[in-house]
């Protein structure tokens, strides 16, 4: 297992390197001169020698690849420079906001998983018409944009029922509505995955045998189907987590949840390149770790793969 883990991380190194290259290249190839922008931000009318001095200070006078390696060595120590807009260290800004976004995405994922399992199992065990109705309902839920769902939830829960408040202070109670918004849509699309997977298993001969043996639906579902779909579901959960990290931006901006979404939207409007770059790298890393965890779950849940891995 340890050998497998080592190999898995080793083969991921090119991907990680490629990711860092993408994050760097987007900035390096972006239109607009960061030096001029910084000077303008400082309110200075630049002289040509000032420009050259600043370019030398940031290493911008060097060719593309040496600059990339400079940036990479600094990025490996999580040094992304300073924000152009606020002048503060980018890594500090990211670390302040990252926990709130992770808390939102994780609680939304937990909600989505519970919701999707309930939906999927209900759609499978219900009769034809109810099952079709449930599937229609999930398609509808998937189609509702999260920003509109958020506004509708605010309308009902904040203004009509008064169960929640609009302006929060980032406490746990304020997490409920944003997490609910995200988990309804994500849960519906995961529910479809659950349904599809269970349905695919039910076309297999071993299920036919189990039915013929007279096993009860619950036993078939938990003993014969669940172990086979845990792996694919873990992959789907990891992908959903990635989607939630992105979707968090939308919901955070509506509910005023103090996560990375606020930071990145501000950075986009101010063209604060170091912040956007660090955001891209961090979200990539979090998503990468999630996919790795999912891969390991796939291995652990499949006896054949498990044996192969422990022998090889």
């Amino acid at each position, binding site marked *: 297992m340890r050998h497998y883990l080592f190999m898995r991380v080793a083969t991921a190194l090119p991907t990680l390197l490629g990711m860092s290259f993408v994050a760097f290249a987007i900035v390096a190839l972006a239109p*607009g001169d960061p030096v001029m922008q910084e000077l303008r931000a400082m309110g200075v009318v630049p002289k040509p020698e000032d420009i050259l001095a600043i370019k030398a200070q940031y290493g911008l006078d060097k060719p593309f690849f040496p600059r990339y390696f400079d940036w990479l060595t600094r990025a490996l120590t999580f040094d992304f420079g300073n924000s152009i807009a606020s002048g503060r260290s980018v890594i500090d800004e990211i670390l302040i906001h990252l926990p709130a976004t992770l808390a939102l995405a994780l609680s939304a994922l937990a909600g989505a998983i519970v919701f999707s399992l309930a939906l999927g199992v209900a759609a499978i065990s219900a009769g034809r018409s109810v099952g079709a109705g449930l*599937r229609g309902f999930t398609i509808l839920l998937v189609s509702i944009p999260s920003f509109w769902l958020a506004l*509708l939830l605010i309308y009902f829960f904040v203004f009509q029922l008064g169960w929640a408040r609009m302006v929060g202070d980032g406490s746990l109670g304020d997490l409920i509505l944003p997490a609910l918004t995200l988990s309804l849509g994500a849960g519906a699309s995961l529910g479809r995955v659950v349904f599809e997977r269970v349905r695919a298993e039910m076309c297999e001969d071993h299920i036919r045998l189990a*039915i013929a043996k007279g096993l009860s639906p619950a036993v078939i579902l938990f003993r014969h189907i669940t172990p086979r779909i845990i792996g694919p579901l873990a992959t789907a959960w990891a992908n959903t987590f990635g*989607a939630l990290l992105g979707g968090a931006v939308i919901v955070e901006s509506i509910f005023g949840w103090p996560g990375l979404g606020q930071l990145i939207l501000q950075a986009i409007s101010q063209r604060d390149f170091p912040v*956007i770059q660090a*955001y891209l790298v961090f979200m990539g890393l979090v*998503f990468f770790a999630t996919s790795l965890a999912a891969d390991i779950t796939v291995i652990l849940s499949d006896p054949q793969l498990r044996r192969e891995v422990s022998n090889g």
Partner: protein
Amino acid sequence: MDDIVKKSHRLPVLRLPIRAGRVGLVLGLCMLAGFAALGLAGYVFTLPPPDSMDLLARLSGPSADHLLGTDHLGRDLLARISFAVHISLGAALAAMAAILAISLPWGIVAGLSGGRVDSVMMRLADIIMAFPMLVLALAIIGFMGASLQASILGVAAAWWPSNARLVRALVLAAKERDFVHAARLCGASRVRVVLRHILPQILPPLAVIISLETASVLLALSSLSFLGIGAQAPTPEWGAMLNEARPFFMQAPHMLLVPGLAVTLAVLAFNLVGEGLRDILDHREPYQW
């Protein structure tokens, strides 16, 4: 009985009894036709221009003059969502075209060549897929500056690798069919094999993917416009209209309902068509307990 089976092989669509998926497909197609009609409404009926303001009728609800009411500047909402059909759906279709323009050749070349070319191409796609899709789109918009064009490019750049993977998987299955091998052995050129034997096989499942992906692209683009980093303010675009409506939440709920319903129904239409097509292509029968 034999006769029926033979016939049904020729026309797989007609064999199926009325099922939920087919109802959904018809419903989705009707809704798409409805949106096309809404988009053309401006040419048939006299609607006020989407930017003309009627300041005396600000924030008014539905009335005979303004069938869906007006917004905070007194602009007619029906005219605006009708005009937004061109922009919102046009942007989604443009993004989808860009995604296909990259992913289709990418997936076909990778799937057919195999070996080292395949693994390098898939590795490159994996690198892009290692970022959450919306996050990558946000970053690209950040570096290009907020505009509808930037959001289309950002979404296309973030969405194509997963499509390329799906196309490759379809091609891998399609190229193993006996008649493809036969065509190869007969000396058919690569182009001919792709156009005559591979593309027709992957088109039906590809239609499902395209329809579902258009729905997700439409969602992403309208979300970006809602965040103020896609289509910009005076442009009638569903997401941007919702963003403008936010301060008038309580006074004029219709300002929220109209564009929100428009996005939801458009996304729903594409999802229904995609799911309906998938249902028709799906020939498995699960064992019932």
